[in-house]
């Protein structure tokens, strides 16, 4: 146990956790609104969209690739699903299945282009982002869908509990989906053979290939999983916003990337954990929420987010360098 703790103390997650704890303690003392059940539930609900996408992007980054196109994928999945749900009055199971299938199909296009045509993933996903998004807005004319089916607008609310101030809490659709997708991603990465193969592929592609891994199948899996998360995320976003807008999601892809890399995933592949991603996302969420509660003008919130990203990546790089030097002198 002490040995495990010593290893944990040197990890990226430990640094993140410490920063988050300091922020949380500071904010709890300095503001009244931060450490309330309501605020925490609101935070979880509003960051679920980014979180679900982050879990998908984490898998892609671990495999050594990158995907930028998922916001366009999410926009398409959302639009098609809600259009059909309005027309045919579907149910929860079918809408999620449909959005997932759309996401998986678009993810498969990415995987095929990347693997079969041997084009680097960043180029493919920049191209498909433009293609998916351009076609979606061209075909739909950029029209919003304002009326969603009533059962969808109403959402779900489990374990509802009303406190003394008559504010009700419960597990809503966003929190449920976030928990399910993080758990699923953790299971795939840590408890399956495929997860180990994805780490191996990202760590050393050549070696993975020589060991006889089916790289094409792994790529299909990874990019389709990203598509699946985009499909799920798109629906809970539509439920939260109570509308579908084809133009609002594209542009958020770098926010998701920031959360995942803050969480310690490497763009070179082979590195990254679900726990780290959760911490990266938490740091961004707590900081943005804290700035608002502290009364800092929301116009400056981006500045602080950028500053924290820069400080965090610089500190990580410095500590990694010190570790390397330490190893050399030992």
């Amino acid at each position: 146990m002490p040995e495990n703790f010593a290893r944990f103390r040197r990890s990226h997650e430990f640094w993140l956790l410490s920063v988050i704890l300091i922020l949380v303690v500071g904010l709890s003392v300095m503001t009244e609104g931060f450490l309330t059940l309501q605020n925490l539930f609101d935070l979880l609900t509003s960051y679920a969209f980014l979180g679900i996408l982050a879990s998908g992007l984490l898998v892609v980054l671990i495999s050594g690739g990158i995907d930028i196109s998922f916001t366009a994928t999410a926009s398409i999945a959302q639009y098609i699903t809600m259009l059909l749900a309005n027309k045919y009055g579907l149910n929860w199971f079918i809408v999620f299945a449909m959005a997932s299938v759309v996401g998986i199909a678009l993810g498969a296009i990415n995987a095929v282009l990347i693997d079969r045509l041997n084009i680097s993933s960043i180029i493919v996903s920049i191209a498909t982002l433009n293609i998916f998004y351009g076609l979606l807005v061209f075909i739909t004319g950029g029209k919003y869908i304002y009326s969603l089916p009533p059962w969808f607008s109403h959402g779900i609310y489990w374990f509802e509990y009303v406190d003394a101030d008559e504010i009700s809490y419960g597990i809503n659709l966003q929190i449920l989906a976030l928990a399910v997708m993080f758990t699923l991603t953790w299971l795939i990465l840590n408890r399956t053979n495929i997860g180990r193969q994805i780490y191996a592929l990202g760590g050393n592609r050549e070696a993975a290939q020589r060991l006889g891994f089916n790289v094409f199948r792994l790529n299909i899996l990874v990019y389709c999983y990203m598509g699946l998360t985009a499909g799920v995320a798109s629906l809970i976003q539509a439920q939260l916003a109570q509308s579908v807008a084809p133009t609002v999601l594209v542009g958020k892809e770098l926010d998701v990337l920031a959360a995942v890399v803050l969480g310690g995933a490497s763009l070179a592949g082979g590195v990254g954990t679900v726990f780290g991603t959760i911490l990266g996302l938490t740091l961004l969420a707590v900081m943005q929420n804290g700035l608002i509660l502290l009364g800092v003008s929301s116009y400056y919130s981006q500045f602080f987010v950028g500053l924290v990203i820069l400080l965090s990546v610089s500190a990580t790089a410095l500590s990694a360098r010190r570790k390397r030097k330490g190893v050399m002198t030992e």
Partner: protein
Amino acid sequence: MSNAPHPPRGPDAALMSLIGSLTGDVTNRRLAILLVALVAVFGLIIGEGFFTKATVQSMAFQLPELGILSLAMMITLISGGLNLSIISTANLCALAMAYIMTKMLPGTEGFAFVGWQIVAIAVGLLIASIIGLVNGFIIAYLGVSPILTTLGTMTMVKGIGIGMTRGNVISGLPDSIVFLGNGTVLGIPTAMLVFAVVTIPMAIALGRTPFGAATYMIGSNEKATQFSGIDTKRVILRIYVISSLLAAVAGLVMMARFNSANASYAESYLLVTILAAVLGGVDPMGGFGKIAGVILSLVILQVISSAFNLLNFSQFLTLAIWGAILVGVTAVPNIRKRLGLID
């Protein structure tokens, strides 16, 4: 040698290809054929309207913004990096320049009038240099990956712009600046001349100087370059400063064209600059890419955009076609390899 699959991309080749050795480079030849084909097809569909002076001139008005930004992206891509902060840098510099020009300018002529404009532009370039130094320092000396570093500075720089202006627009620039974006000299848009003024020294720097050679070498193999006695950290620092300065010039041109500045103009251009550079033959992994190719790719993108505009197609269809062309052009060599045809 002209038919070799990967002709040597040394210093000499860059200037040669800039002057127009369209047959000397496989990528450029492919792009030139694509351009001719596109012009022919659009010419047939649209007719004479496509070849009028007004159409050509409007293309020349629109190209420089994306063009200068693409050069800013390109130089970092060649070195194996990436600069996501170019748009926010362009906007922050434009805001600073616009602020000085709208608040400080005395009258509409005279020595002080010209002087303050020069001061404004100098301040813009100074801000750009600082951002470039921050990027370059963190990337070169702390060893943080360029995508992370510039993602951070992008957010931070944009945050400064939004914070200072509360998201508002600064407008009402002096005529001399508006002329820079909307005027013509001998029928050539002034912005195009600015584009030429930054492109030529950059082509020379990349193609004819030790700095340029080092940039390509770092992109191919940074470790090896370091061991060959080149101070790679200094070179990387300079690359990001140059990228930032180019972004500031782009900011000036944008501000001149719109007669205003704002913290979130032209954000959709960010990924398009990567698209333009890669379409022009820049290897996103670093080491390869020439200015001539990027210029060809910019012209192709502009021709598609202008033609679709004349045909009354949605600008979003233009985006989709740009993406398709990127996949198409990058896929061609791989498909040929797969089919067993040697390129």
